[in-house]
């Protein structure tokens, strides 16, 4: 320690003072984590919505699942009973109030769905406000999933070859999810009575088993020292 009182501080003293100042700053900050409050960039979020980069279609999601992709997390926002009756293979149930505590990793793609898509849109907003970079809504929700993926509509008799080929693919995919193709009813639009989702035991998804819901880190990484 310097004897007497020199007019200028030594370098070490300046470093020490700087560190203490930063420490005091840390004290004032308290908790470097967010603590529930959010700041939004409204323009940025609006741009995402308009740019239509905020959603995936049931068609896309179905292809991801069939391809065995493991790089996303599928979240079902509905009630427990609904989830138990049917859920998209690989989905895990997290109610909207549980999203904060679920501590989803920010470096993962998160796909949200609800029955019609309203809750998933709201959950999207909450997660984007918490600066999750890759969040997507399932467009149309489970209702659209049923119509497009589980029960694709057979094309009209005069449909072109391409349309029929697409339908064949969709029908095969539907079968793997436990659904089936259905005929268009005569009249204006295919009848949509209460479509019953297939029983939960059905989804035998080619080529592998559905990705297990849960731990985001799929492979064990040794991070010791």
């Amino acid at each position, binding site marked *: *320690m310097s004897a007497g009182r020199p007019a200028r501080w030594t370098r070490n003293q300046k470093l020490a003072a700087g560190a203490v100042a930063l420490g005091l700053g840390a004290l004032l900050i308290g*908790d470097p984590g967010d603590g529930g409050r959010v700041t939004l960039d409204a323009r940025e979020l609006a741009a995402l919505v308009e740019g239509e980069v905020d959603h995936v279609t049931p068609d896309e999601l179905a292809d991801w699942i069939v391809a065995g992709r493991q790089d996303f997390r599928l979240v079902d926002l509905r009630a427990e009973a609904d989830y138990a009756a049917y859920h998209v293979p690989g989905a895990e149930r997290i109610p909207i109030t549980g999203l904060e505590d679920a501590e989803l990793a*920010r470096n993962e793609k998160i796909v949200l769905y609800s029955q019609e898509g309203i809750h998933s849109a709201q959950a999207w907003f909450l997660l984007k406000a918490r600066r999750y970079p890759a969040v997507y809504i399932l467009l149309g929700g489970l209702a659209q999933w049923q119509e497009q993926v589980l029960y694709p509509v057979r094309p009209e008799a005069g449909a072109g070859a391409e349309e029929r080929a697409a339908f064949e693919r969709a029908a095969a995919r539907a079968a793997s999810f436990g659904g089936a193709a259905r005929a268009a009813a005569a009249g204006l639009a295919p009848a949509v009575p209460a479509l019953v989702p297939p029983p939960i035991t059905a989804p035998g998804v080619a080529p592998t088993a559905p990705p297990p819901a849960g731990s985001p880190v799929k492979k064990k990484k040794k991070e010791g020292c």
Partner: protein
Amino acid sequence: MNAPLFRFGLFGDEFSLVVAFLIGIGFGFFLERAGFGSARKLTDQFYLKDMAVFRVMFTAIVTAMLGLFYLGWLGWVDLSLVYVSPTFLWPQVAGGLLLGVGFVVGGYCPGTSLVALATGKLDALAFVAGIFAGIFAIGEAWPAISGFAESSALGRLTLPEVLHLPAGLVVLLVVLMAVGGFWGAAALERRFAGRGAGEGS
């Protein structure tokens, strides 16, 4: 900013090995700069003659700690994605004790022994051979001692959680402890080394 960069997929596993090498260079460089390639300098710490080990270690801890705290606060780093090694209390207490004894017996720690090796110290070679022997011994014994070795597993546990204090307060306490320690270290050096502590505060 999406950081830690690796966690957000900026680059893959292969490139992370390149990153590891580069970071290692920085690590080894500064260890040698501080003189930690010398067993005598390192062990002088434990004879209160040269407190460089304490100074370097705690300055590094404070620097990284403050840096991470502020970057986390600014939202530039997602702190939840920074890996914190899980706590195994009693094995770590025992391990630390053994390491401390080994430090004075052997003159190095694993990191510094590498720096010493790189600068030509032959005793570091014996030390490194010893490390392998020790790891082999405990690796073979691990199934037998795993009852203890894996006990008191407390998971990812930080001091703020243990002390029930806000992180910022703990940060300040660490800074104050370090600065106070540096001042005390200089006093100890003057007493035991009998030379002016030109490096003291």
